[in-house]
């Protein structure tokens, strides 16, 4: 059997005689290993035992007797992010909680997946207008699957988890981000800070620019008042 280091592209160069066509498979290491990796990952997806709000109750119901998440190999809820593969963001993400969630995500070992469960985690939901609510966890974390509902029923969550499994089936070790040879620390997401409001450190420049503009405006107003007086 012939394998090529570059995967797909080069395989077409090899000619297989017609009489062997049924017995020979031309593939690559990645193509051979991907199904094995993906099969084991999709069937032992350990969620982080981490509930935020109402959706957590339905998440627990999914894990309990009637819906029985262990049919999918996912019943092992881990309390430590170091042992977990899947973060189910189950509920409203508040500003006070957001730094902790990002930190938990950073602590999870790769491969790691994020499932946003319910309206609040996906976009703020009914509490979006609140002053202490983050309008969607995807403002801070890369989300793989969104499950709608308020809260989603256990059936909906199971459906979302199956969608996650299908997504995992599409993965290839050749392209998976965590096999890149860059510095592993470089992939840590920036943890937001709690200032007068939640501060996304990726927006610091914008915040400074806005502040400078506001200060200029205040000074201009003060000068105008002075001039008129």
């Amino acid at each position, binding site marked *: 059997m012939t394998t090529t280091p570059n995967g797909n592209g080069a395989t077409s160069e090899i000619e297989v005689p017609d009489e062997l066509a049924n017995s020979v498979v031309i593939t690559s290491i990645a193509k051979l290993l991907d199904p094995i990796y993906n099969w084991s990952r999709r069937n032992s997806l350990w969620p982080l*035992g*981490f*509930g*935020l*709000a*109402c959706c*957590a*109750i*339905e998440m627990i*119901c999914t894990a*309990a*007797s*009637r819906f029985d998440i262990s049919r999918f190999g996912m019943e092992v*809820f881990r*309390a430590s*992010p170091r042992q977990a593969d899947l973060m189910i963001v189950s*509920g*409203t993400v*508040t*500003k*006070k*909680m957001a*730094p*902790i969630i990002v930190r*938990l995500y950073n602590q999870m070992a790769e491969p790691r997946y994020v499932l946003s469960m319910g309206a609040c985690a996906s976009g*703020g939901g*009914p*509490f*979006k*207008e*609140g*002053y*202490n*609510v*983050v*309008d969607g966890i995807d*403002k801070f974390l890369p989300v793989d699957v969104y499950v709608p509902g*308020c*809260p989603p*029923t256990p059936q909906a969550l199971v459906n979302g988890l199956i969608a996650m499994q299908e997504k995992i089936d599409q993965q290839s070790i050749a392209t998976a981000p965590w096999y890149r040879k860059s510095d592993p620390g470089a992939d840590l997401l920036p943890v937001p*800070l*709690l*200032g*007068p*409001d*939640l*501060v*996304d450190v990726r*927006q*610091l420049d*914008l*915040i*400074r620019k*806005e*502040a*400078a503009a*506001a*200060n200029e405006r*205040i000074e201009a107003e003060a000068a105008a008042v002075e001039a008129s007086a």
Partner: protein
Amino acid sequence: MSDTILEAPATGDQPVVFDNPVDEVTAALKERFTEFVADDTRPGYGGLVVSADKIVEVAEALRDDLGFNYLSSVTGVDLIEEDKMEVVYHAYSIDKGGDAMVLKVQVDRDNPVVPSLTPTYPGADFQEREAWDLLGIRFEGHPDLRRILTWDGFHGHPLRKDWKEPFFEEEAKPFGSRWPAGEVFRAEEKNVYGKNVQYPEGWAPSGAEYEAETDSYAGITYSRESTPGLKTEKVTVNMGPQHPSTHGVFRMALTLDGETIVGLKPVMGYLHRNHEKIGERNTFIQNIPYTDRLDYISSMSNNLGYVLGVEKLMEAEVPERAEWIRILMAELTRISNHLWALGFLLNDMGALQTPMIYYYIERELILDLFEATAGSRMMCNYMRFGGVAYDLPDQVRDQPVMDFLHDLVYDRLPRVLHQGDELVTGNEIVRARGIGYGYLSAEDAIAFSAAGPLLRASGVPYDVRRANPYSYYEHLDFDVAVRYNGDIYDRYLIRIDEMQQSLRILEQVLPHLKATEGASIIGSKPQYALRMPNAGEAYGRVENPKGELGYYMTAKRRSANPERYHVRAPSFINLTALEKMCMGHKVADVVAILGSIDIVLGEVDR
């Protein structure tokens, strides 16, 4: 039922309806503090307005001499039009029951300072911190006046009427952009940061940004002084908000001497979803689905408390069938909540998941009924002003609904209670970890304003359904469950007792449901665009599975939105007693003690 540790006196012979002691006490207070108290003369309002410097004396007289020893609720109201800040107190008499004695203190809005009642009623602790956090009312003499729901350094006091959130659209709903023919827009498109954030004008990050941790440990001492004879140091340990046993995003900062707890500070606000701010912008009916999300395990009871409060304001009539359905739903909610609570309590005590999985089979039956009736398993949004939204369905799980209910009440639920009782109650580990741990005396339970099973497990037979009956509870035959040892084990037992009593109530409700089949379920026509006919205040309270759930709301005449909307959350106030219960125990017991309080973070942080 299992063997009890103490023989409880029969509570059934208590007087069912109390005389209202409030009038008597009002007269007494007026006589004693003639110059310092006055009737609240605004139309629709009640209670006494007390001058700020006398409130502590009045409260002490109320507690010691007049028997109103239970301060249930403390909250602030922003009276922006009168340029005043008001603090509203609701106190009850544990012995006499009846309505609340309402006290009010009005102070200057720009510099609101009120003497703290925490030394008199320790249960005011967290509530005063909340009023400081959200309204900026300073309580002089409070031992630890820090922000509680937001974080230290948060800008402004969000419940003030002139404070605007980042996604602010208009003062009150329905917003013009959505109704009657407006265009919905995404709020983040108008926000310069594209997120739900705003900063004070001209604020720029300095670089030395605030770290979330530092604040939580403030007030906790880290001491190098050693225990006599041993070389040990006290150490502060953080538990939560990401911890498998804190029942959500609750956090405790524990100070330990070895493994013994010498200090515990609850830290909350990780699920602060701005219920009250959103509620004050909402129309009255829009708040019903939000109340579902307070104590999200018992949404039906939350609905009930809220509609009772609004019905007091608008003086609505409720037809008979609707009342029976309400009681049916409230009691089934109690059972489903206690099944949940016991599952988790046992989980915390080491019976990992097995009892929980057993209990949830029957809980799913109750949820199926809710889903068939209201359309949702958890967020029922079912009660309406003057009735309920829908009649009972024809079928649940392919069974006629009355047959289903009959099976549930006479067969499935008693069976699961019996089974759980047999398997768990006498269990050696449960007894060893439960008996004598997390003790709360009756006096402390009252002083800390504990409510619900926590209060009754300490030997105080106070149940809103009996003390201040609402709906048809005064016509129903049931006992107030009470236990006398005030420890984890009693809090476990009392939940089983309460479920038995709920079953007893349900057995009485079923014939009425059968008899009223087809009758009206809502008083007048459904009030979707409700405008309050009269100005005034109302305090609706129910005995929720977790304790007394109260809604305080005020409204102007012809208004569509509540002016002030406050929730007295039992889980939140029950946590005040947590430190007291945990002191001197080992760190592993904290988990079980917290489980025995049965908190839900949606209600703690709101």
